[in-house]
């Protein structure tokens, strides 16, 4: 029983991280219909910045702020320089371009900070089954997700962002500054992604630390329905807890297989994820 309880708590905190990174994927997907493979690399760079700033100043929160700022700027730059020129290209082009960017940024991180791991601190005390750091992660993710949900669902800015993503041409005809919306979307997503990075990276940072988290984050986003921030949160937490059970009760080597099994069985019943709905009628 306590094992079960402990596994649930452990799953909750890792699930929060999946959810956060998944959320940033969802925001970009909503904003530009692109699955951003460079997202873990953006989060990585901003986490490294946090590492350096914290090391230099001794303040975790200065590093935290620097990471969010740098992440946002990076996200905006990527949209402007890489994604925008590809807006008329075939649908796979942005995927490949962001993959290329992932490689470049990981390599750059290795060049600057070396491929060897460094210690990276938690925001709060990490001791305890459900520590202050865990609580912070879960709360930060919930608050961010609620904010994003409100933004998309109830504000006109959110509506404009969605319209720009679904059909840029029509959005333009309706007076929406599509370029600004897309940039905003990427900036926001990168900020959330940086937050996710800061939560996911501890205790050690190295260029590939976010790879695994990214796969699970994408799984969580797909699980919840890529169009739905709420779904991603639920998907992330469910995945985190599910995988924690598998790792604890069956063996850690089964985790990737279990993620596959969970995803396939959910998609078999709901092809657009738990919370996704097939909006358009087909005929």
């Amino acid at each position, binding site marked *: 029983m306590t094992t079960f309880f402990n596994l649930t708590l452990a799953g909750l905190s890792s699930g929060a991280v999946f959810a956060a990174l998944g959320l940033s994927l969802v925001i970009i997907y909503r904003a530009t219909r692109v*699955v951003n493979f460079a997202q873990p690399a953006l989060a990585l760079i901003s986490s490294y910045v946090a590492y350096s700033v914290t090391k230099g100043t001794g303040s975790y929160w200065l590093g935290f702020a620097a990471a969010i700022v740098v992440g946002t700027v990076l996200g905006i730059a990527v949209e402007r320089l890489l994604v925008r020129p590809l807006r008329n290209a075939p649908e*796979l082009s942005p995927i490949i371009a962001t*993959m*290329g960017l992932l*490689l470049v940024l990981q390599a750059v991180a290795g*060049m*600057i900070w070396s491929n060897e791991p460094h210690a990276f601190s938690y925001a709060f005390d990490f001791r305890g089954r459900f520590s202050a750091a865990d609580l912070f992660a879960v709360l930060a993710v919930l608050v961010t997700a609620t904010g994003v949900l409100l933004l998309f669902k109830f504000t006109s800015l959110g509506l404009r962002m969605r319209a720009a993503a679904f059909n840029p041409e029509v959005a333009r005809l309706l007076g929406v500054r599509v370029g600004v919306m897309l940039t905003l979307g990427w900036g926001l997503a990168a900020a959330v992604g940086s937050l996710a990075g800061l939560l996911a990276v501890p205790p050690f940072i190295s260029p590939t630390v976010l790879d695994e988290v990214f796969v699970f984050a*994408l799984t969580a986003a797909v699980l919840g329905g890529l169009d739905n921030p709420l779904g991603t949160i639920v998907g992330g937490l469910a995945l985190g807890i599910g995988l924690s059970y598998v790792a604890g009760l069956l063996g850690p080597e089964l985790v990737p297989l*279990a993620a596959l099994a969970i995803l*396939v069985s959910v998609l078999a019943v709901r092809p657009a994820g738990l919370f996704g709905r097939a909006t358009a009628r087909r005929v």
Partner: protein
Amino acid sequence: MLNKLPPVVVHLLAALGCLVLLVLLTFAADPFTNLRIATVGYYLIAVAGLALLTGFNGQVSLGHGAFMFIGAYTVALLVKRVPAFPIWADLLLATVAGGVAGLLAGAAAARLRGPYLAGATLALAVGLPAVTQRFPELLAGSNGLSFTVNSQPAGLVGTIPSTQWQAWIVWLAVLLALVVLANLARGKLGRTLRAVRDDEVAASLAGVHVGRTKILAFLVSSACGGLAGGLQAFLLGTAAPGSFTVALSLSLLAALVLGGLGSLWGALWGAIALVYFQVWTDDIAEVLSLRSDISDNLPLALYGVVLIVVVLAFPAGIQGGLRKLWVRVRRPVPSQRGEAS
């Protein structure tokens, strides 16, 4: 005149021509270049299979490495456990195993679209190699299997280097598979695949069983993946989970896009690019002799830059660029094919 022959004959003749050229090429090349020629071969068939699935049928797979995984382990197990089987039988079974896996994956994926399919296939690429951990006795866990395939006829041992022989075998298998793919691409099935990609509703009204077509695309494409994995195992004598990472699956897709979607030629350019970009970036990094943190990471960075630049500069891939060039050269002579048929 050539038009009157059944496509299979045309394609077989073309394949034969290619094989002859290749054999000549292998004599001109040193043993290591022959290894690279063979490597291009198995990547080609993997990318060509993906071209069918993603380019023709519009199903994006981020997990094609999983089918190579299956093919490689099939060959590895057969070589180790049933050494009596000739290598062509092993390769055939690897193809079949890949196809069967594709059938299952396709059936599960038939209702998925766009990023949902991408996510599910990515999970496949991550999840499937983990089975080696579950059956360590059979599949040797994370160490994987290593073995040697002695397929070279006794008469040839010593006369030609083994890599040259291997290049022949690989390309023979690849060209045979390409003949099938070319038949398919040119014929009714290719048309059906593209129709389903463009509009599922209209396709079903035209009598196309959409689900079955998508599964078929998966099947053929992953059979190619299985063959590619089998050839890799044959060539390198290894089957280990560490070879079939997400990075492999993604680089297959990258090769496809770089080469150009929607044509088998694109797969060839993509496969060549996949092999040689890495060689070039490694060489450049080596020449520069920098601090280890920088030189270790430089090939990766350069490879990423190449991906970005090519996608930005040639949105339709290398084949698209070549075609544009071709059209420009041919402009003065208008095509007559429309009227002829």
